[in-house]
């Protein structure tokens, strides 16, 4: 992580390429080539993983037979969580905006999809697009004041947004006399576990690919620069206002998409999708996985997605002395406890462990690369 910071941030400001002294241009080329070769080495692993994931349903069916459907459903959920974790990580880990409000977009995305496909009888893809657009607009609405409000105030304001969205969605439900918003009008193929799995796999792959490039582009560098020092970024000619707002909008769109897909996954949208519990789940993913890291978002989402399964292995009700504990009531508390412990003892997350391991293995290579650039 440190290596990226030092090589990426102090790029000369916006002067056209030809104005720069030759040596600077030259070394920039070398740096770019170097970083490209670094990404290039990840490709075989990524492709291999993809093939494995594509074969996963078949392997599962072979191995476990009847229970495979449920497990596959759970893995699909992890894909959706990855999207949400990426969104939160862009905002918090990259652009360093202390926003707790992503759950609001999550809930909104789900409800928009439900509304369009159920009440307005629109095709599914229009529902998804509108959910993302509405989230984008909401992102602008939230992001614009956020440019003036910072730190503690922003955390409070965005947490308030989550509470508010929840009570408004509740109000929407009660005025229509329903408990939750069921999606009865989904396209046929999405009700099949396997098809849903492949759809989510494709979506997640495309978005991971796009984000990987976005974060290595001018935009990603600008976000990282803002995170490391807003004043310095501004002094280097980064348009802080523009990029902060962009972070809010990109994050909102992604979260909206995740919310819509989550509603599809559960075939229902509930107002608890926009709640403090949900916020905590997102934050747990990125803090345990690792702030400011794509790999971290993935690891965190996998962790949070599998935790209920692990807890499910415990006997329920669990007896501790005179207490009877229903395991299902513990889930969010366990997330929160893990989040707390991670923040206190392990602030760099799971991805930093992998990063450290890789640095140890390729220690001399990395050092040589740093001196070259």
């Amino acid at each position, binding site marked *: 992580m440190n290596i990226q910071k030092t090589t990426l941030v102090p790029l000369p400001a916006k002067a056209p390429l030809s104005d720069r002294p030759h040596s600077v241009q030259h070394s920039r080329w070398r740096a770019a080539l170097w970083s490209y070769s670094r990404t290039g080495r990840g490709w075989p692993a990524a492709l291999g993983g993809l093939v494995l994931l594509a074969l996963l349903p078949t392997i599962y069916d072979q191995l476990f037979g009847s229970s495979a459907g449920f497990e596959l459903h759970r893995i699909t959920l992890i894909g959706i969580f990855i999207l949400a974790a990426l969104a939160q990580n862009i905002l*918090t880990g990259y652009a360093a905006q*202390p926003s*707790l409000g992503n759950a609001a977009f999550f809930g909104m995305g789900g409800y928009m999809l439900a509304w369009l496909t159920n009440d307005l009888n629109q095709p599914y893809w229009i529902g998804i697009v509108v959910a993302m657009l509405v989230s984008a607009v909401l992102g602008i609405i939230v992001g614009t*004041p956020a440019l*003036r*409000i*910072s*730190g*503690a*105030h922003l*955390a*409070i*304001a965005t*947490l*308030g*947004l989550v*509470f*508010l969205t929840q*009570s*408004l969605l*509740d*109000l929407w439900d009660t*005025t229509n006399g329903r408990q939750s918003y069921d999606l009865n009008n989904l396209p046929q193929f999405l009700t099949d576990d396997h098809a849903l799995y492949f759809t989510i796999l494709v979506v997640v792959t495309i978005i991971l690919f796009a984000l990987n490039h976005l974060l290595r582009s001018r935009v990603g560098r600008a976000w990282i620069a803002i995170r490391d020092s807003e*004043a310095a970024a501004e002094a280097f000619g980064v348009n802080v206002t523009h990029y902060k707002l962009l972070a809010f909008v990109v994050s909102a769109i992604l979260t909206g998409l995740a919310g819509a897909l989550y509603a599809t996954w559960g075939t229902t949208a509930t107002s608890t999708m926009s709640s*403090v*519990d949900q*916020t*905590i789940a997102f*934050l*747990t993913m990125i*803090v345990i996985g690792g702030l400011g890291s794509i790999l971290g978002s993935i690891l965190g989402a996998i962790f949070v997605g599998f935790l209920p399964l692990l807890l499910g292995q415990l006997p329920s009700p669990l007896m501790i002395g005179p*207490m*009877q*504990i229903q395991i299902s*009531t*513990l889930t*969010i*508390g*366990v*997330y*929160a*406890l893990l*989040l*707390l412990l991670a*923040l*206190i*003892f392990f*602030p760099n997350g799971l991805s930093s462990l992998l990063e450290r391991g890789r640095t140890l293995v390729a220690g001399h290579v990395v050092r040589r690369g740093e001196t070259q650039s």
Partner: protein
Amino acid sequence: MLVFLQVTLAGLVTGSLYGLLALGIVLVYRTTGVLNFAYGAIGAVCACFMYILLTGPHLNFWLACILALLFALVLGIVLERSFARPVLEAPIFTKAIATLALSLVLQTIAQQVWPQLTSPVHFPTPFEGHALHIGAIYLSLIDLTVLAVTALLMVGLNLFLTHTKLGIAMRATADGLSASRLMGVPVGLIFLLAWSLSALVAAIAGILMASEQNIIDVQFMNPILLLAFVAAVLGGLDSLPGALIGGLLVGLADNLLALLLAGHSIGALPISDPGIREMLIFGGFILVLLLRPQGLLGRALLRRV
């Protein structure tokens, strides 16, 4: 007119509760830089403890109250040592996330230990059914208690902070940590004090609120926590009188809006719903933040480079 006065009075009472919570929030935020989202949970856990004392061993109300307040002091100390101290150097946002997590942990633990409190139950108090009639205005005994306790606490805290050595040390710590450490202020002790004092205030607010509503469960403080934070920010997050004034403003706005909107609806949308009211207050809050980011009474923010 009479209705208006009555509603204003109710607004002052709920406003005092918001103000009390905002006081504790500001106290911890100023001294230790922790934005304490677990504040509602702390108050609720203390109030729940009191409920257990009242219903389990059938203690006297006042004895239970004192024990609950002692419990709050201890809880504050434990939380400071085990939770706030390790993340002391972390950025504000990290600490905010940590307290958010802490609130869920506290609530989960409380729900497991006292399963009877997961759904709302009756909170017995000696205040029930007693009320004053001043002219045509109705003021229940608990409302009067809320107002009196808030005023007393405010005056007491202010005297403590301005006139005792410990209080002055506390303010010094808030202004400059390293400077006050160099001046020989026992900073660790000050943090401990700030947390246990704020837990005490949370417990008082929680008990008052439970007595006012006569209903308690583990999560009963959650809905008002946001409004307490709104109050604290309106007051500028750095002054105790500001927090109280912010609380009173929010309480008044809440009750007066409820009076104004009652029974009205736009189309099919019942705007008298609490959700809509919350949205209006919140919108006003954002507006204030945009126009005066430092809050109504706060000092201007400086950005250090």
